[in-house]
């Protein structure tokens, strides 16, 4: 099978110089010598694309984009993988989903139009929520994660509650969508374009019905999906999408929010989606720096060179993932920071999980906080 | 509009359609084009040739200029960017001002780009020849002027290339001005230790 011309053009795959910079930085390759982005690409280009599509390695890639930052030829490897997964889906590939594919099933369930979810039970009693309004807060899968990962005690809904606190404090009464669906990120990256589109359309309709002109999200993946994938696969959006960090920057600069003094030292995990996919490195750091007394120490590999949290799209969570996570957590410990701040609920969950490891867990322990929560906690009077 | 042609100047246009081997004739019916050209106003001679740019091809132009007393020449062959100078010389050798030549680009702009539509290409070729003839009617002799060239040169940059060029020209007897931005000449070359492939000193 020959790689389609369209894909070659879109991803510049044929520009590959075979230099191997991608493989030498790839977090998977570091722990799994059998995995090499370069070889996947070169193999595909030299007439073995079919093999690539059938190979489980197609789903091993974290699509974290670190290879892309190094590539001299600007080969869009992540795009190559994503598009190839669409092809794989057509061939009926069995995607190696973690958790038995339960999460993907949940997402596919959500494509059903007649679903009437009860996803807002978490909303704190005092929170000010609007039925219709200018601003909507897109919660994402947090309620489901909390239900699903009870054994990890992730309590990721803290993030949602924190977001409500921040929004309300900045005099915003957000609309919460009763029937919002998963943004579709994970289905898209597993190659299931059809169901992704269904979810996307549900969400776009729900937001348009709510009358919101601005949608705020606390999830790096939702943000990328709204920002890049919805316009690509669905069409231009009639509303603006903001990551909570952008909202925070605006509110702080307008003097709507202020923070208590603290003496905490934190380090920040750049989520792939926010950082390398969207180039948002400075915004989270700006937000953190607006807390007086909060000091940020960087891990050895940060921003463009940050290492992924080890799993992506609830696929292929294996021993390699754990090793990446423990490597990352150790880097965080080495900074001497009190807490590791994450910018994506998935990173948060994955690290939490790594620390639950009965053998290694204790060695890896460090306080983890999501960016939104740490900001909400720091809010002053 | 300026420069009217004087009435007495009777137009005698010759059209030469080139086969370019099969490059043109493989698509365009050159004979039909020449025949069509023959029927155009002011055209007194139209012919085809297998390779107009060849020595015999050029000779035919020269002969026709003399025989038919041509005062405009239209060559329908390849791009003027390729052979305009060739045919200009041919005209000049036959005593015609080289600027009274017009070229029609049948090869690059017709036969090669419409390989699968020979009929339409032939129609287009006719149109193109008509365009060429139409323009040729208004061509005027031009005279190329000469300007003196001063026997001095300026070399901008005193690196290895600038130094070499300066020395060559100065040794040939010209005055050379070597302009260098830095306090010394030498450029990057002077910073390098040994140089490949001979591994000797750079300065």
């Amino acid at each position: 099978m020959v790689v389609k011309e369209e894909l070659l053009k879109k991803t510049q795959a044929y520009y590959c110089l075979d230099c191997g910079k991608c493989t030498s930085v790839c977090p998977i390759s570091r722990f799994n010598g059998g995995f090499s982005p370069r070889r996947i690409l070169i193999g595909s280009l030299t007439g073995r694309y079919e093999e690539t599509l059938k190979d489980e390695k197609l789903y091993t890639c974290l699509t974290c984009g670190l290879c892309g930052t190094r590539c001299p030829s600007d080969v869009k490897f992540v795009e190559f993988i994503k598009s190839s997964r669409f092809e794989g889906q057509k061939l009926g590939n069995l995607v190696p989903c973690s958790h038995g594919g339960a999460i993907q099933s949940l997402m596919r369930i959500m494509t059903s139009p007649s679903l009437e979810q009860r996803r807002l039970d978490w909303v704190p009693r005092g929170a000010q929520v609007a039925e219709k309004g200018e601003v909507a807060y897109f919660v994402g899968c947090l309620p489901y994660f909390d239900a699903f990962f009870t054994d990890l005690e992730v309590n990721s809904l803290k993030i949602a509650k924190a977001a409500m606190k921040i929004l309300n404090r900045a005099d915003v009464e957000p609309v919460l969508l009763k029937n919002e669906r998963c943004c579709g990120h994970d289905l898209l990256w597993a190659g299931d374009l059809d169901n992704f589109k269904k979810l996307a359309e549900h969400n776009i309709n729900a937001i348009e019905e709510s009358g919101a002109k601005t949608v705020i999200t606390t999830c790096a993946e939702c943000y990328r999906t709204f920002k890049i994938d919805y316009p690509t696969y669905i069409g231009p959006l009639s509303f603006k999408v903001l990551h909570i960090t952008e909202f925070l920057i605006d509110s702080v600069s307008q003097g709507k929010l202020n923070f208590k003094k603290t003496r905490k030292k934190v380090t920040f995990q750049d989520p792939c989606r926010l950082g390398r996919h969207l180039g948002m490195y400075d915004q989270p750091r700006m937000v953190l720096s607006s807390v007086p007394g909060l000091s940020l120490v960087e891990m050895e590999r940060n921003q463009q060179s940050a290492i992924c949290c080890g799993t992506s799209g609830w696929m292929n969570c294996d021993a390699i993932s754990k090793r990446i996570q423990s490597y990352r957590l150790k880097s965080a410990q080495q900074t001497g920071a009190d807490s590791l701040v994450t910018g994506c609920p998935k990173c948060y969950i994955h690290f939490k999980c790594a620390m639950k490891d009965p053998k290694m867990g204790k060695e890896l322990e460090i306080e983890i906080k999501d960016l939104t929560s740490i900001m909400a906690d720091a809010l002053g009077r | 509009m300026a420069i009217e042609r004087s009435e007495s100047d009777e137009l005698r246009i010759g059209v030469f359609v080139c086969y370019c081997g099969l490059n043109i004739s493989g698509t365009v019916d050159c004979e039909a084009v020449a025949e069509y050209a023959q029927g155009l106003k002011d055209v007194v001679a139209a012919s085809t040739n297998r390779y107009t740019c060849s020595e015999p091809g050029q000779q035919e132009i020269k002969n026709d200029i003399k025989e038919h007393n041509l005062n405009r020449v239209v060559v329908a062959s390849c791009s003027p960017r390729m052979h305009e100078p060739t045919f200009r010389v041919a005209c000049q050798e036959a005593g015609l001002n080289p600027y009274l030549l017009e070229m029609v680009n049948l090869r690059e702009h017709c036969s090669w780009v419409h390989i699968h539509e020979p009929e339409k290409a032939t129609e287009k070729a006719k149109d193109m020849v008509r365009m060429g003839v139409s323009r040729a009617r208004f061509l005027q002799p031009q005279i190329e002027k000469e300007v003196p060239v001063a026997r001095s040169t300026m070399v901008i940059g005193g690196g290895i290339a600038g130094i070499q060029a300066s020395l060559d020209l100065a040794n040939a007897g010209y005055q050379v001005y070597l302009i260098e931005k830095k306090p010394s000449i030498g450029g990057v070359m002077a910073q390098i230790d040994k140089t490949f492939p001979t591994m000797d000193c750079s300065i």
Partner: protein
Amino acid sequence: MTDVGRHPRIELMTLSEVADVQGYIGNFRVKVLRKARYVDEKECTACGDCIDICPVIKPNEFDLGLSTRRAIYQPFPQAVPAAFALNMEECLGNNPIACGKCLEKCEKECIDYDMQDEEVEIKVGTIIVATGMDVYDPTELDEFGYTRFENVITSLEFERLINSGGPTEGHLIRPTDWQLPKRVAFIQCIGSRSEKRGNPYCSNVCCMNTIKDSLLIKDHWPEVEIKVFYMDIRAFGKGFEDLYKRSKANGVMYIRGIPGDIREDPETKNLILLAEDSNSGKVVEHEADMVILSIGLIPSAENSLIRQLLTLSRTSDGFFMEAHPKLQPVDAPTKGVFFAGCAESPKDIKDSVTQASAAASRANILMSAGKFTVEAITSLINEELCKACGVCARVCPYHAIEFDKEKKLPARVIEASCAGCGTCGAECAFDAVIMRHFTDQQILGQVEAILEENPQDKVVVFACNWCSYAGADFAGISRLQYPSSIRIIRTMCSGRVDENFVLHAFKLGAPVVLVSGCHFADCHYINANRWTQKRVEKLWDKLEKKGIRPERLQLEWISAAEGLKFAKVMKEMEELRQGVTLEEIEYTRKEL
């Protein structure tokens, strides 16, 4: 080098810049700004007394900051002219109450704080552009840690370190501990062959430079372990392959794979490189004491000014564009100007010298002939029709039209300066400009010939000689197929396309007209195509006012290399043509 200094027919002007160039082939008038040296170049014997006493210490640029120099200095020992120079911005002496120590010390009294910059005018017949190149700054390639890690240096810095005239007197040391590095790693293609950061082209010299450097190290210190990380080794020149083999025979390890990441061991300051050996497919960590980034060459920063002054153009890589890449590789598009060395493309010393001699020879041909035949395709003013409005003079990219505003006399063309673009002819509202060999009549004659029969089936395309017409030729050469409805009219420049040509075509029933020319950066006539754009914009407005769809007039920039684009655009033109109704054409005929 010293030959230059003492040659009787070479006037060496250092610390000088070209300020202005007027005139044309054979007759250039050049203004050169000679900056003050503050030291009498002829008197100074470079004795060095002044240096010993100068209190100002600055990084030495020649050693790339690896050593220091004073405010009064000689760039390097073999400098030509062998005179010192004083950097007045750094000198304290300029200040009346301050230093002045060198002035006292100089026995020959050749230091003069009051020396002034001067402007010199020279007249030359030919110009050789040898502005050279700059080297790539790898700081932006953060993964290699240049500037973050002290023991990561560039190949040019390495040259200074291993040079016996350099700051270490040729002893190879690494910056952190001044010890001989035991393990050295070279990384190739830094800033070269890169689409994203750096430059897309191959810099030509770096492979051989590294091979040479590896041998230099091995010659002096055979025990040093050398690893070269590369993508391809390009050793194509005479004697190059031998050198490559020698390097390998000396034990230099060539590893196919570029490191994606370098870390520094905070204690030893050693560097840990992570690279995939693409032959084995294994990712391996390599530890090195010193890393040398084999940096590429980039166009000289000087180029943009010279380009403007001499009306040159650049290729997409930023180096100067030659008149023809194969057949006139040392000629500039501007006549009488030639290229030598890296100004035109990255090259090694041998190639630079070869090209320099070629450029000298090309210039020699002109100068020994003593005369040159200029372009016959120039413009001419019909003085009877000229209303002395001055538009032609304003739009001329070459300032080849003289026009006196006060006296209101008809404009006059300086033929030797005129390059023949025809923009003046297109802009003149009174048809007072006669564009030789591309007269209005000639072009209108072609328009009429196209539209004589079945005008509704034809697309009229105006194409400039240098780019779009050549692009059409390229489409032909590549056998790219496009619809046969296309009729091309050649003009020297898209700037020649008069409003009248377009309107006349529409009046005669043309469904679609395309005006095409060079991309903005490539215009053969400096910037004449800016006027094309303005004119087309005006025409769109005009057409719309008359109720004619402006879409029927199209504009496209197509370069000589864009045969594919030409064919694509022609297909689009045909699609547009099919969308134009007979009623529309009829309406247009009446309206115009």
